[in-house]
Protein backbone atom coordinates (compact mmCIF):
# COMPACT_ATOMS: atom_id res chain seq x y z
CA UNK A 1 0.00 0.00 0.00
CA UNK A 2 1.45 3.32 -0.98
CA UNK A 3 1.18 5.75 1.87
CA UNK A 4 -0.54 8.99 1.03
CA UNK A 5 1.43 12.19 1.46
CA UNK A 6 -0.72 13.13 4.44
CA UNK A 7 0.11 9.87 6.15
CA UNK A 8 3.78 10.26 5.41
CA UNK A 9 3.73 13.76 6.87
CA UNK A 10 1.91 12.56 9.98
CA UNK A 11 4.33 9.72 10.39
CA UNK A 12 7.29 12.05 10.21
CA UNK A 13 5.80 14.30 12.87
CA UNK A 14 5.27 11.33 15.17
CA UNK A 15 8.84 10.18 14.58
CA UNK A 16 10.21 13.62 15.29
CA UNK A 17 8.04 13.96 18.38
CA UNK A 18 9.33 10.61 19.54
CA UNK A 19 12.63 12.35 20.16
CA UNK A 20 11.20 12.96 23.62
CA UNK A 21 12.08 9.35 24.38
CA UNK A 22 15.31 9.15 26.26
CA UNK A 23 17.08 6.66 24.09
CA UNK A 24 16.78 8.32 20.72
CA UNK A 25 19.72 8.91 18.40
CA UNK A 26 20.12 12.54 17.28
CA UNK A 27 21.95 11.70 14.07
CA UNK A 28 19.44 9.04 13.06
CA UNK A 29 16.47 11.35 13.59
CA UNK A 30 18.07 14.19 11.67
CA UNK A 31 18.85 11.82 8.79
CA UNK A 32 15.18 10.93 8.76
CA UNK A 33 14.38 14.62 8.67
CA UNK A 34 16.71 15.23 5.72
CA UNK A 35 15.39 12.24 3.75
CA UNK A 36 11.76 13.07 4.50
CA UNK A 37 12.27 16.69 3.43
CA UNK A 38 13.33 15.48 -0.01
CA UNK A 39 10.41 13.04 -0.18
CA UNK A 40 7.72 15.40 0.97
CA UNK A 41 8.81 18.86 -0.16
CA UNK A 42 9.54 20.08 -3.68
CA UNK A 43 13.33 19.95 -3.20
CA UNK A 44 15.97 17.51 -4.35
CA UNK A 45 18.51 17.78 -1.55
CA UNK A 46 18.37 18.51 2.16
CA UNK A 47 20.88 18.76 4.97
CA UNK A 48 20.89 19.57 8.66
CA UNK A 49 23.55 21.52 10.51
CA UNK A 50 23.71 21.84 14.27
CA UNK A 51 25.49 24.48 16.30
CA UNK A 52 28.54 23.55 18.33
CA UNK A 53 30.53 25.92 20.55
CA UNK A 54 32.90 26.64 17.68
CA UNK A 55 30.35 26.93 14.86
CA UNK A 56 27.92 24.91 12.77
CA UNK A 57 28.57 21.24 12.18
CA UNK A 58 27.23 18.98 9.45
CA UNK A 59 25.01 16.30 10.97
CA UNK A 60 22.84 14.78 8.25
CA UNK A 61 22.55 15.08 4.47
CA UNK A 62 20.13 13.41 2.08
CA UNK A 63 22.94 12.35 -0.28
CA UNK A 64 26.72 12.35 -0.43
CA UNK A 65 26.58 15.06 -3.07
CA UNK A 66 24.59 17.20 -0.66
CA UNK A 67 27.14 16.44 2.02
CA UNK A 68 29.89 17.78 -0.23
CA UNK A 69 27.88 20.90 -1.05
CA UNK A 70 27.26 21.63 2.62
CA UNK A 71 30.82 20.99 3.63
CA UNK A 72 31.73 23.53 1.00
CA UNK A 73 29.33 26.05 2.50
CA UNK A 74 30.92 25.63 5.92
CA UNK A 75 34.45 25.86 4.59
CA UNK A 76 33.63 28.94 2.55
CA UNK A 77 31.96 30.50 5.57
CA UNK A 78 29.04 31.80 3.55
CA UNK A 79 25.68 30.47 2.44
CA UNK A 80 21.95 30.22 3.22
CA UNK A 81 22.26 27.76 6.12
CA UNK A 82 24.77 29.94 7.92
CA UNK A 83 22.57 33.00 7.44
CA UNK A 84 19.42 31.23 8.59
CA UNK A 85 21.23 30.02 11.70
CA UNK A 86 22.78 33.38 12.49
CA UNK A 87 19.65 35.45 11.96
CA UNK A 88 17.01 32.92 12.99
CA UNK A 89 15.06 33.93 9.88
CA UNK A 90 13.63 31.68 7.17
CA UNK A 91 15.33 32.06 3.79
CA UNK A 92 13.27 30.91 0.81
CA UNK A 93 13.25 30.84 -2.97
CA UNK A 94 16.69 32.32 -3.59
CA UNK A 95 17.28 31.87 -7.34
CA UNK A 96 20.64 31.78 -9.13
CA UNK A 97 21.02 35.55 -9.54
CA UNK A 98 20.27 36.39 -5.93
CA UNK A 99 22.45 33.51 -4.71
CA UNK A 100 25.35 34.86 -6.76
CA UNK A 101 24.73 38.28 -5.30
CA UNK A 102 24.43 37.25 -1.65
CA UNK A 103 26.94 34.42 -1.49
CA UNK A 104 29.21 34.61 -4.55
CA UNK A 105 31.67 31.89 -3.55
CA UNK A 106 28.89 29.57 -2.39
CA UNK A 107 27.10 30.16 -5.71
CA UNK A 108 30.24 29.24 -7.66
CA UNK A 109 30.36 26.06 -5.60
CA UNK A 110 26.77 24.85 -6.01
CA UNK A 111 25.62 26.15 -9.41
CA UNK A 112 27.91 23.90 -11.49
CA UNK A 113 26.13 20.93 -9.89
CA UNK A 114 22.73 22.04 -11.12
CA UNK A 115 21.37 23.69 -7.99
CA UNK A 116 19.01 26.47 -9.07
CA UNK A 117 17.07 27.45 -5.97
CA UNK A 118 18.14 27.37 -2.33
CA UNK A 119 16.20 27.64 0.93
CA UNK A 120 17.26 27.46 4.56
CA UNK A 121 15.09 27.02 7.65
CA UNK A 122 16.36 27.99 11.10
CA UNK A 123 16.11 25.54 13.99
CA UNK A 124 15.14 27.76 16.86
CA UNK A 125 12.80 27.94 19.83
CA UNK A 126 12.07 31.09 21.81
CA UNK A 127 15.44 32.67 21.27
CA UNK A 128 17.50 29.50 21.43
CA UNK A 129 19.12 28.84 18.05
CA UNK A 130 20.52 25.37 17.60
CA UNK A 131 21.10 25.00 13.85
CA UNK A 132 19.51 25.18 10.42
CA UNK A 133 18.22 23.05 7.53
CA UNK A 134 19.41 23.53 3.94
CA UNK A 135 16.97 22.71 1.15
CA UNK A 136 18.30 22.77 -2.41
CA UNK A 137 16.33 22.39 -5.65
CA UNK A 138 17.52 21.54 -9.14
CA UNK A 139 14.36 22.96 -10.68
CA UNK A 140 13.58 26.60 -11.28
CA UNK A 141 10.15 26.74 -9.63
CA UNK A 142 9.75 28.46 -6.29
CA UNK A 143 8.72 26.32 -3.32
CA UNK A 144 4.96 26.45 -2.65
CA UNK A 145 4.07 28.37 0.52
CA UNK A 146 2.56 25.20 2.00
CA UNK A 147 5.88 23.39 1.58
CA UNK A 148 7.75 26.21 3.27
CA UNK A 149 5.38 26.09 6.24
CA UNK A 150 5.59 22.32 6.40
CA UNK A 151 9.38 22.36 6.24
CA UNK A 152 9.54 24.91 9.07
CA UNK A 153 7.11 22.79 11.10
CA UNK A 154 9.42 19.77 10.70
CA UNK A 155 12.35 21.94 11.79
CA UNK A 156 10.40 23.20 14.81
CA UNK A 157 9.41 19.75 16.03
CA UNK A 158 12.96 18.47 15.62
CA UNK A 159 14.22 21.51 17.54
CA UNK A 160 11.85 20.90 20.44
CA UNK A 161 12.94 17.28 20.53
CA UNK A 162 16.61 18.20 20.63
CA UNK A 163 16.15 20.83 23.31
CA UNK A 164 14.05 18.47 25.39
CA UNK A 165 16.69 15.82 24.96
CA UNK A 166 19.26 18.21 26.42
CA UNK A 167 16.87 19.15 29.22
CA UNK A 168 16.38 15.48 29.98
CA UNK A 169 20.13 14.96 30.21
CA UNK A 170 20.40 17.91 32.57
CA UNK A 171 17.58 16.62 34.73
CA UNK A 172 19.01 13.13 34.83
CA UNK A 173 22.33 14.57 35.88
CA UNK A 174 20.62 16.70 38.51
CA UNK A 175 18.75 13.68 39.77
CA UNK A 176 22.01 11.81 40.23
CA UNK A 177 23.50 14.75 42.09
CA UNK A 178 20.45 15.15 44.31
CA UNK A 179 20.41 11.46 45.18
CA UNK A 180 24.08 11.66 46.09
CA UNK A 181 23.47 14.74 48.19
CA UNK A 182 20.69 13.01 50.07
CA UNK A 183 22.73 9.90 50.66
CA UNK A 184 25.36 12.15 52.21
CA UNK A 185 22.71 13.84 54.37
CA UNK A 186 21.51 10.47 55.59
CA UNK A 187 25.05 9.55 56.65
CA UNK A 188 25.49 12.95 58.30
CA UNK A 189 22.30 12.60 60.31
CA UNK A 190 23.28 9.15 61.48
CA UNK A 191 26.76 10.34 62.47
CA UNK A 192 25.24 13.38 64.22
CA UNK A 193 23.03 11.14 66.34
CA UNK A 194 25.87 8.79 67.17
CA UNK A 195 28.26 11.56 68.12
CA UNK A 196 25.64 13.37 70.19
CA UNK A 197 24.88 10.23 72.16
CA UNK A 198 28.56 9.42 72.57
CA UNK A 199 29.65 12.82 73.87
CA UNK A 200 26.45 14.05 75.50
CA UNK A 201 26.13 17.13 73.29
CA UNK A 202 23.11 18.13 71.22
CA UNK A 203 22.76 16.95 67.62
CA UNK A 204 23.33 20.53 66.46
CA UNK A 205 26.61 20.75 68.39
CA UNK A 206 27.56 17.34 67.05
CA UNK A 207 27.03 18.62 63.52
CA UNK A 208 29.28 21.60 64.24
CA UNK A 209 32.02 19.29 65.48
CA UNK A 210 31.74 17.14 62.37
CA UNK A 211 31.94 20.23 60.20
CA UNK A 212 34.96 21.77 61.92
CA UNK A 213 36.79 18.45 61.88
CA UNK A 214 36.10 18.14 58.16
CA UNK A 215 37.39 21.66 57.60
CA UNK A 216 40.48 21.16 59.77
CA UNK A 217 41.48 17.93 58.08
CA UNK A 218 40.24 19.11 54.67
CA UNK A 219 38.18 15.95 54.28
CA UNK A 220 34.73 15.74 52.68
CA UNK A 221 31.84 15.68 55.15
CA UNK A 222 30.56 12.29 54.05
CA UNK A 223 33.98 10.80 54.76
CA UNK A 224 34.03 12.18 58.28
CA UNK A 225 30.49 10.90 58.80
CA UNK A 226 31.49 7.45 57.63
CA UNK A 227 34.46 7.42 59.99
CA UNK A 228 32.21 8.27 62.94
CA UNK A 229 29.76 5.55 61.96
CA UNK A 230 32.57 3.02 61.68
CA UNK A 231 33.76 4.02 65.12
CA UNK A 232 37.09 5.15 63.74
CA UNK A 233 37.01 8.73 64.90
CA UNK A 234 37.91 9.72 68.42
CA UNK A 235 35.01 11.99 69.44
CA UNK A 236 37.35 14.17 71.50
CA UNK A 237 39.50 14.82 68.46
CA UNK A 238 36.35 15.90 66.61
CA UNK A 239 35.50 18.43 69.31
Amino acid sequence: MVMSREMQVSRLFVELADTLVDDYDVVEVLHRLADASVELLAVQAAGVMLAEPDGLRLVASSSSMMEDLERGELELGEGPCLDAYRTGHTITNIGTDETRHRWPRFAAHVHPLGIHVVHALPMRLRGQRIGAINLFATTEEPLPEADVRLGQAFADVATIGLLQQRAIRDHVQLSGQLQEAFTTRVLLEQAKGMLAERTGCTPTEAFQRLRSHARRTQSPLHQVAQQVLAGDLDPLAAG
Partner: protein
Amino acid sequence: MFSERAFQIVAGLSWFERSAEPTRLADQLVATAAGSVAVTGVGLAWMDAGLPGVLVAATDEGARRVEELQFTLGEGPCATAAVRHRPVLVEDLAGRQGSEWPGFTAGAVEAGVAAVFAFPLELGGVTFGVLDFYRNAPGSLSPADLAEAGALATVGTWVLMHLQPGIADEDRFPDLTERLADRLQVHTAAGVLAQRLGLPVGDALNILRARAFAKGRPISELAQAVLAGTETFPPVTPLPPERSR
Protein backbone atom coordinates in the same frame (compact mmCIF):
# COMPACT_ATOMS: atom_id res chain seq x y z
CA MET B 1 7.66 6.73 25.86
CA PHE B 2 5.80 9.99 25.28
CA SER B 3 2.67 8.57 23.73
CA GLU B 4 -0.17 10.62 22.34
CA ARG B 5 -2.15 9.84 25.47
CA ALA B 6 0.67 11.23 27.63
CA PHE B 7 0.53 14.43 25.58
CA GLN B 8 -3.22 14.62 26.21
CA ILE B 9 -2.76 14.20 29.94
CA VAL B 10 -0.08 16.88 29.99
CA ALA B 11 -2.37 19.20 28.05
CA GLY B 12 -5.03 18.64 30.72
CA LEU B 13 -2.78 19.90 33.52
CA SER B 14 -2.53 23.60 34.23
CA TRP B 15 1.05 24.13 33.13
CA PHE B 16 0.54 27.67 32.04
CA GLU B 17 -1.30 29.10 34.98
CA ARG B 18 0.64 31.51 37.14
CA SER B 19 0.25 29.40 40.21
CA ALA B 20 1.24 26.22 38.37
CA GLU B 21 3.83 25.13 40.88
CA PRO B 22 4.97 21.56 40.31
CA THR B 23 3.39 20.41 43.59
CA ARG B 24 0.02 21.59 42.36
CA LEU B 25 0.62 19.81 39.07
CA ALA B 26 1.44 16.70 41.07
CA ASP B 27 -1.88 17.05 42.94
CA GLN B 28 -3.68 17.40 39.62
CA LEU B 29 -1.86 14.40 38.22
CA VAL B 30 -2.81 12.02 41.02
CA ALA B 31 -6.40 13.28 40.90
CA THR B 32 -6.47 12.66 37.16
CA ALA B 33 -4.95 9.23 37.71
CA ALA B 34 -7.51 8.22 40.33
CA GLY B 35 -10.24 9.33 37.98
CA SER B 36 -9.05 7.54 34.88
CA VAL B 37 -7.87 4.19 36.31
CA ALA B 38 -10.14 1.82 38.23
CA VAL B 39 -8.43 2.19 41.61
CA THR B 40 -9.23 3.63 45.02
CA GLY B 41 -6.33 6.03 45.41
CA VAL B 42 -3.03 7.21 43.93
CA GLY B 43 0.23 8.52 45.36
CA LEU B 44 3.26 10.15 43.77
CA ALA B 45 6.53 9.87 45.65
CA TRP B 46 9.95 11.33 44.97
CA MET B 47 13.06 9.23 45.37
CA ASP B 48 15.12 9.82 48.48
CA ALA B 49 18.56 8.25 48.83
CA GLY B 50 17.79 5.27 46.64
CA LEU B 51 14.34 4.42 47.92
CA PRO B 52 10.91 5.90 47.28
CA GLY B 53 10.81 8.66 49.80
CA VAL B 54 8.95 11.86 50.23
CA LEU B 55 5.31 11.81 49.21
CA VAL B 56 4.73 14.60 46.75
CA ALA B 57 0.99 14.11 46.28
CA ALA B 58 -1.71 11.65 47.34
CA THR B 59 -5.43 11.44 46.66
CA ASP B 60 -6.43 10.02 50.02
CA GLU B 61 -5.38 8.60 53.36
CA GLY B 62 -5.00 5.12 51.90
CA ALA B 63 -2.36 6.30 49.45
CA ARG B 64 -0.56 8.14 52.25
CA ARG B 65 -0.66 5.02 54.37
CA VAL B 66 0.80 2.87 51.59
CA GLU B 67 3.70 5.26 51.30
CA GLU B 68 4.22 5.75 55.05
CA LEU B 69 4.30 1.99 55.62
CA GLN B 70 6.99 1.58 53.01
CA PHE B 71 9.12 4.28 54.54
CA THR B 72 8.67 2.93 58.03
CA LEU B 73 9.52 -0.61 57.04
CA GLY B 74 11.96 0.04 54.22
CA GLU B 75 10.17 -2.46 52.02
CA GLY B 76 7.19 -2.67 49.67
CA PRO B 77 6.05 -2.80 46.05
CA CYS B 78 7.22 0.77 45.34
CA ALA B 79 10.70 0.06 46.58
CA THR B 80 10.82 -3.13 44.53
CA ALA B 81 9.57 -1.29 41.43
CA ALA B 82 12.26 1.36 41.87
CA VAL B 83 15.01 -1.24 42.26
CA ARG B 84 13.80 -3.46 39.39
CA HIS B 85 13.06 -0.52 37.09
CA ARG B 86 9.79 -2.26 36.18
CA PRO B 87 6.19 -1.87 37.32
CA VAL B 88 5.21 -4.13 40.20
CA LEU B 89 1.61 -5.25 39.94
CA VAL B 90 0.15 -6.89 43.04
CA GLU B 91 -3.44 -7.78 42.33
CA ASP B 92 -3.96 -9.52 45.64
CA LEU B 93 -1.78 -8.38 48.51
CA ALA B 94 -3.21 -11.04 50.79
CA GLY B 95 -2.18 -13.73 48.28
CA ARG B 96 1.15 -15.23 47.32
CA GLN B 97 2.68 -12.04 45.91
CA GLY B 98 2.31 -10.20 49.19
CA SER B 99 4.70 -12.57 50.93
CA GLU B 100 7.58 -10.70 49.36
CA TRP B 101 7.06 -7.83 51.82
CA PRO B 102 5.78 -9.44 55.02
CA GLY B 103 5.82 -6.28 57.12
CA PHE B 104 4.35 -4.01 54.49
CA THR B 105 1.65 -6.50 53.49
CA ALA B 106 0.51 -7.04 57.06
CA GLY B 107 0.19 -3.31 57.68
CA ALA B 108 -1.38 -2.56 54.30
CA VAL B 109 -3.98 -5.33 54.50
CA GLU B 110 -4.91 -4.13 57.97
CA ALA B 111 -5.41 -0.66 56.54
CA GLY B 112 -7.79 -2.05 53.93
CA VAL B 113 -5.39 -2.07 50.98
CA ALA B 114 -6.04 -5.15 48.82
CA ALA B 115 -4.09 -4.44 45.63
CA VAL B 116 -1.14 -2.20 44.77
CA PHE B 117 0.29 -1.25 41.37
CA ALA B 118 3.63 0.56 41.54
CA PHE B 119 5.18 2.26 38.51
CA PRO B 120 8.78 3.50 38.66
CA LEU B 121 9.30 6.93 37.17
CA GLU B 122 12.57 7.08 35.35
CA LEU B 123 14.62 8.62 32.57
CA GLY B 124 18.04 7.76 31.32
CA GLY B 125 18.27 4.84 33.72
CA VAL B 126 17.76 7.07 36.77
CA THR B 127 14.71 6.52 38.94
CA PHE B 128 13.11 9.82 39.89
CA GLY B 129 10.22 8.43 41.92
CA VAL B 130 7.23 6.15 41.96
CA LEU B 131 3.58 6.49 40.98
CA ASP B 132 1.54 4.03 42.93
CA PHE B 133 -2.08 3.02 42.61
CA TYR B 134 -3.95 1.08 45.26
CA ARG B 135 -7.35 -0.58 45.45
CA ASN B 136 -9.39 -1.66 48.45
CA ALA B 137 -10.50 -4.80 46.61
CA PRO B 138 -8.29 -7.40 44.90
CA GLY B 139 -8.13 -7.66 41.12
CA SER B 140 -5.75 -6.90 38.27
CA LEU B 141 -5.60 -3.81 36.08
CA SER B 142 -7.35 -4.14 32.74
CA PRO B 143 -5.14 -3.75 29.62
CA ALA B 144 -6.68 -0.31 29.06
CA ASP B 145 -5.94 0.71 32.65
CA LEU B 146 -2.40 -0.60 32.34
CA ALA B 147 -1.81 1.52 29.25
CA GLU B 148 -3.34 4.55 30.96
CA ALA B 149 -1.17 4.00 34.04
CA GLY B 150 1.88 3.89 31.79
CA ALA B 151 0.97 7.22 30.21
CA LEU B 152 0.35 8.72 33.65
CA ALA B 153 3.73 7.45 34.81
CA THR B 154 5.42 9.19 31.87
CA VAL B 155 3.75 12.44 32.84
CA GLY B 156 4.66 11.79 36.49
CA THR B 157 8.32 11.67 35.51
CA TRP B 158 8.02 15.05 33.84
CA VAL B 159 6.22 16.59 36.82
CA LEU B 160 8.96 15.35 39.15
CA MET B 161 11.64 16.64 36.83
CA HIS B 162 10.15 20.09 37.13
CA LEU B 163 9.98 19.71 40.88
CA GLN B 164 13.59 18.66 41.26
CA PRO B 165 15.51 21.89 40.96
CA GLY B 166 13.67 23.41 43.90
CA ILE B 167 13.27 20.30 46.00
CA ALA B 168 15.68 21.32 48.74
CA ASP B 169 14.38 24.89 48.72
CA GLU B 170 12.35 25.56 51.85
CA ASP B 171 10.82 28.69 50.44
CA ARG B 172 9.57 27.02 47.29
CA PHE B 173 8.24 23.78 48.67
CA PRO B 174 7.89 24.14 52.45
CA ASP B 175 5.71 21.02 52.80
CA LEU B 176 8.19 18.84 51.00
CA THR B 177 11.23 20.09 52.84
CA GLU B 178 9.37 19.56 56.11
CA ARG B 179 8.59 15.98 55.16
CA LEU B 180 12.18 15.47 54.13
CA ALA B 181 13.34 16.85 57.47
CA ASP B 182 11.08 14.33 59.23
CA ARG B 183 12.69 11.58 57.23
CA LEU B 184 16.20 12.73 58.05
CA GLN B 185 15.34 12.85 61.73
CA VAL B 186 14.75 9.10 61.61
CA HIS B 187 18.38 8.69 60.69
CA THR B 188 19.55 10.92 63.52
CA ALA B 189 17.54 8.77 65.91
CA ALA B 190 19.08 5.65 64.38
CA GLY B 191 22.53 7.09 65.06
CA VAL B 192 21.61 7.79 68.68
CA LEU B 193 20.21 4.31 69.12
CA ALA B 194 23.20 2.69 67.44
CA GLN B 195 25.54 4.39 69.88
CA ARG B 196 23.35 3.60 72.87
CA LEU B 197 22.93 -0.07 72.07
CA GLY B 198 26.41 -0.59 70.65
CA LEU B 199 25.08 -1.71 67.28
CA PRO B 200 25.78 -0.85 63.64
CA VAL B 201 23.47 1.93 62.51
CA GLY B 202 21.72 -0.36 60.02
CA ASP B 203 20.65 -2.65 62.85
CA ALA B 204 19.49 0.33 64.90
CA LEU B 205 17.36 1.48 61.97
CA ASN B 206 15.76 -1.94 61.78
CA ILE B 207 14.99 -1.88 65.50
CA LEU B 208 13.29 1.49 65.04
CA ARG B 209 11.30 0.12 62.13
CA ALA B 210 10.23 -2.93 64.06
CA ARG B 211 9.17 -0.84 67.09
CA ALA B 212 7.23 1.59 64.89
CA PHE B 213 5.46 -1.23 63.14
CA ALA B 214 4.69 -3.08 66.36
CA LYS B 215 3.22 0.03 67.95
CA GLY B 216 1.44 1.09 64.78
CA ARG B 217 3.10 4.51 64.87
CA PRO B 218 4.74 6.40 61.99
CA ILE B 219 8.48 5.99 62.29
CA SER B 220 9.11 9.74 62.16
CA GLU B 221 6.99 10.13 65.29
CA LEU B 222 8.99 7.43 67.04
CA ALA B 223 12.23 9.08 65.97
CA GLN B 224 11.18 12.34 67.58
CA ALA B 225 10.43 10.46 70.79
CA VAL B 226 13.87 8.84 70.73
CA LEU B 227 15.54 12.21 70.30
CA ALA B 228 13.39 13.74 73.04
CA GLY B 229 14.39 10.90 75.35
CA THR B 230 10.83 9.67 75.87
CA GLU B 231 11.26 6.33 74.10
CA THR B 232 13.54 3.79 75.71
CA PHE B 233 15.00 0.59 74.37
CA PRO B 234 16.27 -2.32 76.43
CA PRO B 235 19.97 -3.05 76.05
CA VAL B 236 20.73 -5.65 73.43
CA THR B 237 22.39 -8.82 74.62
CA PRO B 238 25.39 -9.46 72.43
CA LEU B 239 25.41 -12.85 70.76
CA PRO B 240 27.85 -15.36 72.34
CA PRO B 241 31.11 -15.51 70.40
CA GLU B 242 31.37 -18.40 67.96
CA ARG B 243 33.05 -21.37 69.50
CA SER B 244 36.21 -22.35 67.71
CA ARG B 245 37.00 -26.01 67.30
